[in-house]
């Protein structure tokens, strides 16, 4: 499924869509950035509550298909701006991490 379809079916808030046609392949949830880089595969969905600027670099370098911020964690404008500049798909959900992941598992 594509990032656009994924965002739609899970009713995710679209903080930035840079490449909505990007294909999703699997998912990983976690907040420790080196774990994320060690455990994700390219094209994964990355679920996290971490919202500092470094998530943009991590998403870009680990080549994830999109970031999904759980729990409606606050995202600063600086981060959405960087997502725009670096072509990162950035989504958000009000659901806590576990519920969100359960739902993700149903659709991908």
């Amino acid at each position, binding site marked *: 499924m594509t990032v656009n379809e994924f965002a739609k079916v899970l009713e995710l808030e679209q903080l930035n869509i840079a490449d909505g046609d990007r294909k999703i392949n699997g998912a990983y949830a976690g*907040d420790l*950035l080196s774990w994320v880089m060690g455990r994700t595969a390219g094209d994964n969905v990355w679920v996290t509550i971490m919202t500092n600027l*470094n998530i943009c670099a991590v998403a*870009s*370098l680990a*080549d994830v298909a999109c970031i999904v911020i759980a729990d409606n964690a606050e995202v600063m404008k600086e981060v959405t701006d960087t997502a725009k500049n670096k072509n990162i798909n950035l989504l958000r959900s009000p659901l806590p991490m576990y519920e969100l992941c359960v739902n993700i598992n149903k659709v991908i």
Partner: protein
Amino acid sequence: MEEQLRFRYEVDGDNFTSAGEASVSVKKKLRQLGFAPEIIRRVSIAMYEGEINMVIHAHGGRADVVVSKDKIEITLDDDGPGIPNVELAMQEGFSTAPDNIRSLGFGAGMGLPNMKRYTDTMKIQTELGKGTKIIMTVNI
């Protein structure tokens, strides 16, 4: 690709939020050169972990990337405190990162293990009080 391509970056030790600029730039260049996504991903992550380490643990340093016919070589060189026990530092979970860095999601002690995991060779030269030099290669 007959000749080598060389890229050199100064990594600023004071600016934590912009850390990763060198790795992002290398990623872009490798993309333009048409490398496979998985090669780019491995180089990008290994270099970023090294770059972040220089910022967090060594007040910045220098990064050199050489792209040649059969491999990509990444050298990270700093004048930081050095690593007292490399074997220990290479273990998953070992970290001396301070709390303010941990609150940003770093400090899991997975950076050096990731650098090893994603590269074909990795050499660490380090001297206490002098600095650390890490040379990694990814075969093409």
